[in-house]
Structure formats: structure tokens, C-alpha cells
């Protein structure tokens, strides 16, 4: 049976973040929290294949209780089950600690119902690290295929998947034995319109909460800030740059403005390094 686990994250909509010019602090108030867009597309791909093959889609997330809203959104898009790993001890996790807990959870899910494909977005838009997917794959000893842009085939009987992935200058077709872990580009699937039954179900849906004590057996030195080798040493706001000269078209006319700018433009000597 096709069983997809989709790892999702709720993120602040970084396009709307502002800095308080007085204090230099991040203004969090009023910044909407959204389902990480890449995760939404990964989830859509999982649901699309569930519709073709039958099977189930399980959503997995780690975060505060407010993340339940994003899990509900996933149920609305067609997922069957949602699990939220949530406890204060998990907070402060960096990518290493996050990958540990997610891997443990996926092992547990797998022991109940074998997993065929683990879906991740290619990265979360708040941290942009793209590290957790490959990290989880190492912990589970499951092959990772990053930057997946299209799923061409999933065959649970032949235990096979064929996908297309993107690199900077080429695309690749990869064939792999199941289970695999994919990190997905937006192209992997379009976000579908929710069906009425899914929509209704999502409204009342409460995700299963997995805590610190159970059901996972966790090495306590590996979770949360304790299990995170990286810490924030300091933060700063970017230095202000000095504004350049402004030329107003209204004042000098378009032709003169362009002329002036082209005269001012200097090209430093061309040192080509890439031949």
C-alpha cells in the first residue's frame, strides 16, 4: 500500500516581515503564519499519488500547538492523519536536533504502517537551510532525492519510484527503490482545491499530539536546544548603505538623465575567472 509521510513546517510569511526602525527589532506582531509553500506542494504531490494509487497520507510536524492550524490545512488538502510533535523540551532545536526527532517519529509511523515515500519541501522559507530533509534521510538510512520537480512513477508492487530532479544547469531522471525521501520544488504538484468532505473534516480535525515522554523513545541529549550544536552568538541589523546621486527625469528630461547616468557608470577592468 502507498503510504506517504509529509513533513511540514509552519513559517512566518517572510515577505511581510518588517523591522522597527526605532528599536531595530523584528516586528512579529501581525506577521501571518503560513504553511511553508514548498511543503504545501510536497503535500499536494502526496495526495495526488494517493488518489491514483490508493493508500494514506500522514502529516508530521514539530512545533508549538499553533502549528495545528497548518496540519488542519493539510487535512483540508486531502491528508488522512496529522501528527504534531509538541513539547517545550523540543524548542530551540536546530536542524540536527530537528532531524533526530522527525526521524524517530517516522520510524514509529513506519512500524505501524510501512512508509513508501517521505515528502519534504525543498526548504522552509524562514530558515532556507534545506538541511533537514537530507539529515532525516541519513538517520533513517533511506535514499534522499532533493529538488524533486516531478514524480513520473510510483509503483508500490515493484517497489520503485522514478522522479525528475533539478540542479542549476541540468535536470536528472532518477530511479530508486522504495522507500525514499524526496525534497520537493513547487513544480512537483499544483495545490488542489479542497473537496467538500475534506474541508468539513479539517474544520473539526485535531492532530494527534506526540509529547516528550511518549510515544517516542528519545535520547534526551539529542532534542531541543540541548541536542543542537549551533547557537545564535549575536544578531545585528544590516549596515545602512550610503545613498547615491539621484537624477530626476522631471527636472532634466529622460534623455539627459540617461546620458548622465551612462557617463557616470564605470566598468572596472574585466577579470574573467570562469573560462
Amino acid at each position, binding site marked *: 500500500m502507498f503510504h506517504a509521510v509529509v513533513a511540514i513546517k509552519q513559517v512566518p510569511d517572510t515577505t511581510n516581515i518588517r523591522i522597527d526602525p526605532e528599536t531595530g527589532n523584528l516586528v512579529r506582531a501581525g506577521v501571518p503564519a503560513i504553511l511553508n509553500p514548498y511543503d504545501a506542494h510536497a503535500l499536494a504531490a502526496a495526495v495526488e499519488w494517493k488518489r491514483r494509487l490508493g493508500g494514506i497520507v500522514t502529516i508530521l510536524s514539530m512545533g508549538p500547538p499553533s502549528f495545528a492550524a497548518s496540519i488542519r490545512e493539510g487535512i483540508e488538502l486531502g491528508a488522512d492523519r496529522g501528527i504534531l510533535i509538541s513539547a517545550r523540551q523540543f524548542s530551540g532545536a536546530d536542524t540536527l536536533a530537528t532531524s533526530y526527532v522527525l526521524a524517530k517519529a517516522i520510524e514509529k509511523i513506519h512500524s505501524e504502517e510501512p512508509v513508501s515515500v517521505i515528502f519534504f519541501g525543498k526548504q522552509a522559507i524562514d530558515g*532556507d537551510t*534545506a538541511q533537514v530533509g537530507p539529515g532525516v534521510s541519513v538517520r533513517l538510512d533511506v*535514499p534522499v532525492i532533493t529538488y524533486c520537480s516531478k514524480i513520473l512513477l510510483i509503483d508500490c508492487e515493484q517497489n520503485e519510484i522514478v522522479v525528475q530532479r533539478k540542479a542549476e544547469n541540468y535536470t536528472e531522471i532518477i530511479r530508486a527503490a522504495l522507500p525514499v525521501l524526496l525534497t520537493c520544488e513547487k513544480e512537483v504538484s499544483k495545490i488542489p482545491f479542497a473537496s467538500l468532505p475534506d474541508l468539513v473534516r479539517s474544520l473539526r480535525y485535531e492532530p494527534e499530539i506526540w509529547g516528550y515522554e511518549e510515544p517516542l523513545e528519545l535520547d534526551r541529549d539529542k532534542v531541543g536546544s540541548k541536542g543542537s*550544536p*549551533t547557537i545564535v552568538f549575536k544578531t545585528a541589523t*544590516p549596515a545602512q548603505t550610503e545613498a*547615491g546621486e539621484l537624477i530626476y527625469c522631471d527636472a532634466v528630461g529622460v534623455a539627459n538623465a*540617461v546620458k548622465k547616468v551612462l557617463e557616470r*557608470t564605470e566598468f572596472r577592468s574585466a577579470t574573467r575567472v570562469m573560462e
Partner: protein
Amino acid sequence: MILHRVWVYIEQQGGRVHPVSWELLGVANDLAKQLKTKIGSANEKVSVECVLLGNNIRTLARDAICFGAERVYLVEHSALEQYMNAPYCKNVTALAKKYAPEVFLIGATNLGRDLAGAVATSLETGLTADCTELVIDEVDRIDHPLLLATRPAFGGNILATIVCRERLPQMASVRPRVFPVPPKSDNAVGEVITEKAVIDFRDRRVELVERIQIDQEGVNLEYADIIVSGGRGLGDASGFKMLKDLADVLGGKVGATRPCVDAGWIAYEHQVGQTGKTVRPKLYIAAGISGALQHKVGTQNADFIIAINKDPHAPIFDMADVGIVGDLYDVIPEMIAQVRQQKESESL
């Protein structure tokens, strides 16, 4: 003797090295220099080293030495002919365990990110992504150097400096073009150490069926000398045609801001900024771009910036060397005409 090793992963595909690898060798040498001033005894040494994996790529080791590696750990095997996550991860991990570098830098390309996250997890260590500044902490005496890795966070609104105090190696990824390529020294001396490949038959679970080159050059924005970029001020997708005309007459490439890409006006390959490409052109023309911080993060290394915007208070003017306040649909055609004219008069 104690050897403090600073490592760089040399990214190669089909015998071509991604220039970010050379950029990182420049950074590694800077870090080594800082480190040398902090060494306590004559018993300690600092060494810039790199790892190079592939098949029939021995000649690339020489290039790495010329760009500043003192030692190259070379692994060659037919199973490493094409980059694949698992075999590359296992070999890099094995080398890192054997030699215990204190700092390990990897390019934040698609390939490098694919590898770095897996290697850091295998080594159970910290990895800071997309660093824009790397320095060794100013502490008098240390057992191992503390790397201060600074990266933009929250859409470029904040610069966060991350440290990994208790585990080694301290890993960091750096995007192409954040640092310059160091000078190549053709008579540099270095050592090539051949290492045996680690091969796990289970990695045959994944098979590369086909690789399709998109186009030899790709958009390759990162390495363009001239970029003409458009933002929301273009109004719609058709504006990019005009920008392409300007880019063509200047011999440059077309860039775009994230809202334009999100709106589907132009492909992601053209996106400049924190979630797109970091660029380092000699000339950057920003048309109809307001200048959000996440865009600035990707363009701050440009030598010269011309901004065109209707709004004289647009933040883009704060980072531009020169700005034109006016309608880009008047300014760009005029610019195309003047550059063309200039070229014609030069060719006469």
C-alpha cells in the same frame, strides 16, 4: 604536533569544478591567516586542505593547489563518476572522521546543499547555511578555533551570527559569488593524498537514468558581469522583454525579484536575492525594484548599481550608486537607444 585543518569541499561535475569551490579556498586561507595569529606554540600548524571526489579527475587537484589548497585528499572510483548523495556523503564523512578538520566549508549550490546536510548529520555536528561572513573569534587562546558564521535571517532583516562550540567540524555553506575568487598561483606547491573509496553496494538503490543539460550556460546569473533586473514596477510579464533588449545590447543577463517570479512573470532561474541567486556583477541595473532587504542581500556585492524607480523614496536608491527617478518605460527604451548609438559610433 597539532594540525588545525580548514577544509573545503571541491564541487566537480564531469571534470568541471564549480567556481564556488575556489571562492571557498580564498575564504579558507583568510581563516587560516586569522588562526595563525592565535596559535600558542611552535608545535601547532594551520593547514588549508580540500577533498575532491570523482573519477579520473586527478588533474583538478593541481588546480585546487593553485587556488590555495596545501593538501588535497583525492578519492577516485567509477562509482563516484556522477554525483549521488549517498556514496558522496559516505566518502566525505569517512575522510572527515579520519582527519578531523575543525572548519569545513561547502558551496551552497543545489549539489552542495544536498551533500552538506547529509554529511553534517552523519558527523552529528552543526552546519550553518548560506553564510555571508566567516571569521575566527577574537579569543586569545583556544583549543580549537571558534568560527563565527554570519548569515541573513528573516528575509535579510537580521544578520545572525551562529557558532558551533562543542562539536567538530564547524560546518558552513556559502553561496556562489558571496566571496571573490582568489588569485590563481600557477607555481603553488601542495600535496595530493590519494584515499581509498568507501563503496556500499546498498547505494545502488538509487540509479541515475538520465541527465538532461538544460542549456550549456544555463541562465548563469551568478557569474554575469552585467545584469538588468526587473521588479514589481514592471507591472506585468511583458516588461521583461524590454529588459531583455537592454541586457542584449549591453551583453548582460536578465534578473528579477521574488514577487515577479512568484507572480509567474519569469522563471525562478532569474531570481536575484536571498531565496534566489547571489550576484556579483560589474553593473547591476534595477528597474522598478523597490529594494526589499531580501533582494539587497543578493545584490550588495555588485560593483556599480543603477536604480530606476518612480518613487524617490524607494529603498533601492539607498544602495544604488546612481538613481534615476522616472518611469522605467521611458527610461529603459532611451537607455537602449543611447547604448546602441554609443556602440555604433565606437565601431565606426
